[in-house]
């Protein structure tokens, strides 16, 4: 297993996440795609740490922060999705459109 393997997996994870974000209609599924993209970045950090700079602490801190941000994002996100459901009765992204643009 070399650095390249990890980077390819991470790039695939990122691409799958992005594909999910672009094609899913359900707001929660979109957020799941975002989660995959965030984890791709975390995998990148850890791979660089392991293969390039095993003495450095920075990547680990970044991964912890990244996980925290993802959790906070989801928490606030779920509250917003719930509120949207109360107002619109659906959480399909393209049906929630009263404003143009």
């Amino acid at each position: 297993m070399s650095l390249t393997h990890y980077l390819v997996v991470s790039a695939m994870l990122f691409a799958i996440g992005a594909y999910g974000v672009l094609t899913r209609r359900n707001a929660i599924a979109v957020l799941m795609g975002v989660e995959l993209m965030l984890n791709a970045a975390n995998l990148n950090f850890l791979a660089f740490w392991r293969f390039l700079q095993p003495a450095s602490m920075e990547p680990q801190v970044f991964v912890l922060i990244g996980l925290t941000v993802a959790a906070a994002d989801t928490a606030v996100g779920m509250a917003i999705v719930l509120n949207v459901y109360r107002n619109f009765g659906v959480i399909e992204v393209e049906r929630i459109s009263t404003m143009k643009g």
Partner: protein
Amino acid sequence: MTNYIDTYQPLIPYMLLVVLALTVALLDTVPAIRRASILGWLTAAAALVVLALDATAPYSAPWQGILRFDGYSRAFNAVFLVTLAVVCIASVSEEKRLGFCGEYYALLCLSTLGLMLMGASGGLLALYIGLELSTLCLFALIGFAKRERRSAEAALKMLILSAVTSAVLLYGISILYGVLGSTQFDQMAAKLTTISGETRIALWLGLAFVIGGFAFKIAATPFHLWAPDVYEGAPATVTAFLSTASKAGGFAGLLRFLLLGLGGSSETWGVLIIALAALSMVVGNLVALVQTSLKRLLAYSGIAQAGYVLVAVAGASGEGRGMSVGATLFYLFLYAFTNVGGFLLAQVIIHATGSDSISALRGLHRRSPMLAFAALVTLFSLGGIPPLAGFVGKLYLFAAGWQGGQQILVLIGALTSVIALYYYLMVARQVYINDPSDDRRMPVSRPIGVALAVCTLGTLVIGVYPRPWITLGDMAAQGILQTPASSVRRRPDAPSTASHAAPASTAQPAGAQPALPRIGEVCGTPQHGNAEPASADRSLFRL
């Protein structure tokens, strides 16, 4: 021991903001305080106290330079905290309608804290945390009108687009870490010169991702798509904060990243910023022409204004860095007053007429002359008409861009500014020339009246007497041009009278050498009147 205190003393204003947020949320549970609706005023006053504390703290770079407290962070903090204060005052009259109180102000404070961290970041770590903190709080604020469908929709749009951008940004940061071996700005810049061959491609990829993340925050084309809908759906006071302070935070982080992290040479990032600037100016101004809603008009005008600021950012390489930073800060400062005023006006109109269409402004000067005057000042300042603040600011931006070798961008800026004048003047025509359909005065609650007066006065004063505010910009420039402060630098003078609320005048260290182009000498005298920016700045770079 004194060294230790000096290193961590600049953190006090930041911590105080957290304490303020918690206190406000706690005080909200006391029924008497809630009824009296004084929390907004309290938060505003506390924000000014935080500002005063920040202006008197020493410079330092704690924790191996993860954070950097210097003139740059201090000058940007002035922008954020003044905006926070004005928005808090304006929000007081919204409390009853939206049914909020403490938590709203708490979220505003925490969002401001995130922006301040972005301005004070010494590496991508603090920058990312600050960005996320401010954005997460803004989601909740945008969706604050829980029973309004448009507010919920705006929050969802902001959530999805912002979460995606955040993921892209983090991925970009991870690539940059792999290429440059660090996320601290000074170490990144040191490693940058050794990059060659195939790694350059990875570098550019990471760079594009990170700059894309910032472009989203400042709403620059093609990352602007969220802005009109979110601005329209969010409560107007939140929009006012989002379109000024949040945008300023994006620029604060962007300039830190570009000038410190990438070593002040625009070779790697110049093309991206130039493209963003040109697209934002053209798209923002052209789409604004066909808008019928005041909030959407201001949203597209805000996109164009981000483009103008990016002209100066694009010119920020080599010797012209100082002037670009100064111009950016000065413009964001005046833009805070002008644009908050604009959105508060929209709020008043929505309250009075139930719609925010531009035709609702018909004959405003017969109905409420003071409101009409505020509208005129705001619109003319956004359009860049002398002697208002927007004119001086735009002149400074374009001069900085020109000096940085971005003549074509400045030309695009000047041309699109002329287009922009058309739609600003169309609104002004509704206000002053068309006859009203309704003669009643527009009701203005006292808090919004006070906030509007502050914004209008600010726009007027900065326009007529720009010198102290340009000094604020110079302070920011010096902060970023000086080499990283690994040790504490004490301010040479510590004036004991420096605790009054005016942000700029107290803040300049006396020993600092203003080695920067002093545009103040030219702009301080507005008699060269309606000279077009592109030709007027010929006289500037001889200074």
